[in-house]
C-alpha cells in the first residue's frame, strides 16, 4: 500500500530524513516511533503530498506522491500533529465542508457524518463551534475528518497527544478496529502507545531508520539485557556472593528493603537461573518471597538504540 524508497529531505542545509526505505502492506497498522525531531512528521508530510522530498520516491496506494498527487490525496485521510481546524465553523459545518471537498454528494455526506459522529464520539458537540471545544474534542473532530470519506489509508501524526487516559484508550481501540479495513500509519513518541496499537514498529532517529519489526521481534532483540528481580531474606553479603556464584549470573545488585534483600540480577544471554536461585534459597534456608523475570521493555530498547545511534553520530 505504501512504498518508500531512498527518501531524503533537506530543509535548507538541515537533513531531516536521511535515505529511508520501508513498506507498509494493506491492512497493517505501522507505528513510526522516534524522539522529537527524528523526522516522523516530515516523512508523513511527504506521504500526504504536503511537501515534496528532496530525493527518493514514495508511492501510496500505487500512486506516486509527487507525480500523481491528486490521486494520492483522494485515497488518504490525514490528521496533522497540530490538528488545524477553523474555529468559527461548527463541527457539522466543518465536516460538511470537508465532505464537499472530497466530492461527496449530500446523501453520502449525511451518512458519513452520522457514521463518524458515532465512531469518534462527537455526538455531544456536533453543533458547537469548533473554537469552543477542548483539545481532546478537537482531536476527535480531526480524526473524524480523516475518516469521513472512508479512505483506504490513514496517516495519523501523534493521534493521542493531549488526550486524557480514557480517551487515549478509546482512540487506541478505534485505531485497532479500523485496521481491519484500512491501512494505518501513525507516528508517536509515546512507546506504550505504539506497543499497544501497532503490529509493526519502525524506529526512526535523526532521520534514519534504526530498527523495524513487531514489538515481539524487537523485544527478542534485547532479550540479552533482561533481568531477574528477587527478594530473599538472609545475611546480605552471603546472599550476594552465593548468587554471584550461580552459573549464568553476570552481576548482582543488592539493596535492603525492610529486612529483605531486594536483588537485581543481570543474566548472561540464554541463561535462566531462576530455578537455581530458588533451590539455593531452600538449601540455605533463606526465605524467598519474589522471583520474576523482567523482560526487556520496548522502552529500554528504544533508549538504547537511539542513544547508540546518537553516540555514533557524535
Amino acid at each position, binding site marked *: 500500500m505504501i512504498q518508500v524508497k531512498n527518501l531524503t529531505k533537506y*530543509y535548507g542545509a538541515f537533513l531531516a530524513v536521511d535515505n529511508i526505505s520501508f513498506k507498509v502492506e494493506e491492512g497493517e497498522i505501522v507505528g513510526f516511533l522516534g524522539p522529537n525531531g527524528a523526522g516522523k512528521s516530515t516523512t508523513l*508530510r511527504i506521504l*500526504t*503530498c*504536503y*511537501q*515534496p522530498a528532496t530525493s527518493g520516491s514514495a508511492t501510496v496506494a500505487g500512486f506516486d506522491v509527487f507525480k500523481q498527487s*491528486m490521486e494520492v*490525496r*483522494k485515497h*488518504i485521510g*490525514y490528521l*496533522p500533529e*497540530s490538528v*488545524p*481546524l*477553523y474555529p*468559527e*465553523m461548527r463541527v457539522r*459545518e466543518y465536516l460538511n*465542508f*470537508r465532505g*464537499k*471537498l*472530497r*466530492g461527496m454528494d449530500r446523501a453520502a455526506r449525511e451518512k458519513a457524518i452520522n457514521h463518524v459522529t458515532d465512531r469518534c464520539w462527537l455526538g455531544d458537540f456536533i453543533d458547537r463551534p469548533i473554537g469552543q471545544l477542548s483539545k481532546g474534542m478537537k482531536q476527535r473532530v480531526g480524526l473524524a*475528518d480523516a475518516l469521513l470519506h472512508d479512505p483506504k489509508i490513514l496517516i495519523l501524526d501523534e493521534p493521542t497527544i493531549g488526550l486524557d487516559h480514557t480517551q487515549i484508550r478509546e482512540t487506541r481501540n478505534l485505531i485497532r478496529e479500523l485496521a481491519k479495513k484500512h491501512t494505518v500509519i501513525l507516528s508517536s513518541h509515546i512507546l506504550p502507545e505504539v506497543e499497544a496499537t501497532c503490529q509493526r514498529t519502525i524506529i526512526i532517529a535523526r532521520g534514519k531508520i534504526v530498527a523495524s519489526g513487531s514489538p515481539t521481534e524487537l523485544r527478542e532483540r534485547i532479550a540479552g539485557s533482561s533481568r531477574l528481580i528477587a527478594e530473599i531474606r538472609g545475611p546480605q553479603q552471603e546472599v550476594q556472593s552465593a548468587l554471584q556464584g550461580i552459573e549464568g549470573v553476570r552481576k548482582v545488585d543488592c539493596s535492603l528493603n525492610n529486612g529483605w534483600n531486594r536483588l537485581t540480577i543481570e543474566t548472561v544471554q540464554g541463561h535462566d537461573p531462576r530455578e537455581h536461585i530458588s533451590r539455593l534459597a531452600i538449601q540455605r534456608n533463606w526465605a524467598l518471597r519474589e522471583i520474576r523475570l523482567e523482560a526487556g521493555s520496548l522502552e529500554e530498547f528504544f533508549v538504547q538504540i537511539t542513544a547508540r545511534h546518537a553516540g555514533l553520530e557524535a
Partner: protein
Amino acid sequence: MRNVVPLTERELVASFFSPIAYVVGCVFLLFSGWYFVTQVLVPGNEASMRPLFEAMTAILVFAVPLLTMRAVAEELSSGTIETLMTAPVTDAEVVLGKFVGVLLLYAALLLTTLPHVIILLAYSAAPIGVIVFGYLGLLLIGALYISVGLFASCCTRHQLLAAVIAMAILSIFTFLVDYFAELAGPGLRGVLMAVNVPAYFDEFTKGILDTKSVVFFVTTTVFFLFLATKVLESKRWR
C-alpha cells in the same frame, strides 16, 4: 473546478464572521457618505456620482487589503493550510475560491452604497446608465484590488504585513503612477501610462464602456491571481 463552490462558501462564512469586514465596511461607508454629502449633494453641482466614485477608488486602496489580508495569511499562520493542501483540491481552486468569496463580500459592500444613488435620483435627473457603468467599473477595479490583496496574503503568514504589501502595490499604481510618469523618460512613460489604473477607471464613470478598460482590468486581475497561485504552490517547497 467543482471545489471552488465549497471553498467560496467557506470563505464567505469566514469573512462574515470576522469583525474586520464590519469595521472596514462601516469606515468605508462613513467616508463615502461624507464625500457624497460634501461633493455630490451640493446645490449647483452636476448631478453625478463621479466625485464619489473617484473618492471610492482611493478609499478602496486601503479598504480592500484589509478585507483580503485574512484570506490566506490566516490559513498559513493557523496551520489549516496543511489540511487544505492535502485534500484533493488544487492550489488554483483554493485561490479562486477565496477570490470569489471576497468578491461577493465586496459586492455586498458596494450594495450598501445604493442609498446614495436613490437619494441622488430622488433629487435630480441623473442619467441612470452612467451610474450603472460607474458601479460596473467599481466592481472591476475591486476585482483587481482583491486579486492584489490575495497575492499579498499568500506571501506571508502575518496578516498586517499582507495588508501593507497590498496597500503599497495599489498605492503605487493608483496615486503615484502619474508622478512617476512625469519623472520618467519617453519610453518608460509609455509603459507607465499603460498601467495607469485611475485612467482606465475614469472611462466607466463617464458612462463609457471601453473594451480597453475591461480588458485591462480582467487581464491584470487574472495576472495577480496567477501570481497568487504560484506563490501558494511555492510554499510547499519550503
